[in-house]
């Protein structure tokens, strides 16, 4: 009995250590999360804003034990950030500035050729016009390279639904580029 009682603080400390570990791991994923937010929002500055808010929320959720390990921590973090970015996109004000954002975000890479830069700009603009769920699925799968199963976990949909979203997104993009 005494042994068990002595163990209790140790278990609490263990939990605190686990939490600290999770938080450090979350911090290590910040660059990927930033890239995800940047691609979903199409604007670097706005991505920083959203990531900061989403990160604070994620840490709060970790602290109250809301992450229970049903999926990998990066997947869970992707979900928090994706939801925050999509919430931001839903704002009517932000939607009005979508075209402006697309313009801004396309010229990020200095190493791309002029032709590639134009193509990138077109693609970023086309992405910004996709429905939110299609855009999120496409960015997670094609830009971040997540397997369909993880994309499904992030967006809380079935794998079949994700495949459909991807097919539709690609169709829309192809139609746009062909025209």
């Amino acid at each position: 009995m005494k042994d068990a009682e002595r163990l209790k603080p140790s278990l609490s400390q263990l939990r605190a250590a686990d939490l600290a570990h999770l938080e450090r791991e979350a911090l290590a994923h910040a660059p990927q999360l930033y890239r995800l937010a940047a691609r979903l929002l199409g604007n670097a500055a706005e991505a920083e804003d959203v990531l900061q808010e989403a990160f604070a929320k994620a840490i709060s959720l970790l602290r109250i034990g809301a992450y229970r390990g049903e999926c990998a921590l990066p997947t869970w973090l992707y979900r928090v950030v994706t939801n925050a970015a999509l919430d931001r996109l839903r704002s009517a004000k932000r939607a009005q500035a979508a075209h402006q954002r697309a313009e801004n975000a396309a010229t990020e890479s200095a190493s791309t050729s002029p032709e590639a830069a134009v193509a990138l700009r077109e693609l970023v603009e086309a992405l910004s016009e996709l429905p939110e769920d299609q855009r999120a699925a496409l960015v997670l799968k094609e830009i971040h390279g997540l397997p369909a199963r993880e994309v499904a976990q992030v967006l809380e949909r079935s794998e079949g639904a994700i495949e459909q979203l991807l097919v539709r997104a690609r169709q829309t993009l192809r139609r746009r580029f062909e025209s």
Partner: protein
Amino acid sequence: MTLDEKLQALRTATQSLEPSAALQAKLAATVDAGTLASTGAAATGAQAALPATVKVLFVTLVLGVVGTAFYALNRASFSPWQWAGAAQLMADAGTALSSRQCPAPTYVSGGKPIPEARVLAPWPGYAPEERETLKALRHELKSRPFTCTAQQTPLEQLLRMHVLSDAKETRILTRLAYLCPGAARPFLDTARWNSPRACDNSDWCHYPSCSSLEEESCAQRWAELPAESCGGQEGRQRLSLHLCNRLLRADIEEAAVRSATPDAWCLKADVLTELAKLREETQRSHHVQTDAGVVPARVPRGGPRDEK
């Protein structure tokens, strides 16, 4: 270029995107704050070692005190339909208390204690959407498995999870800080502090019931707040002080500034009561007497705000 080639190019370009050093520092600061809280979680673990009977007795005692206070405070002013709502609120509070097994913090309004549940209760003058927000918050407080920590009450944990950026939520935030500056302080410090908006602009100055004079004074204070001190102790104190001043309006702002010390940047409950009286006097006189002397009264646009 084919679509796949374009996607490949975008993938490559994306890899070169990096968050700014400033953002990374802010994220690291968020984690540091989380580590502090986890120490609190460890303390909670030790608390959990208390015998179950003690916990039950404690919860019963707290519920009794809160219930009595609630009854005493509201007997005179509640109509029957309000009593029904209040009963539900108390039930909610009871569930939340029993599930987290820790005492509710003492919130104060007009110098009197009120139960935690009433902090999230709709207040006269709230718009329908504000009431909806409060309802959702109450539900969430009841349904989420919050654990008490040394630093945060469940209510504060709940509110911290929400990014309070909309005007309706700012109103609720204001309500909390007004009720009990001490209890709301950690929430105010952290939830808002983590937003770059707290440092970058003076959004908070555009408060619905602020007079133009107040907004001007507020904007001036924002301009005076050095960006580099935003994360530091000095910046925190100044911002917190500023927020308190906002809550208490311009007629008492000067007094608050003069009486502020690092440990007492927010006004105590008894001072709040005094200030409520002062506000009433403001309507009758152009000058008010405060503990810091006589200061000119500035009657706000649309008349004085009364959130009680």
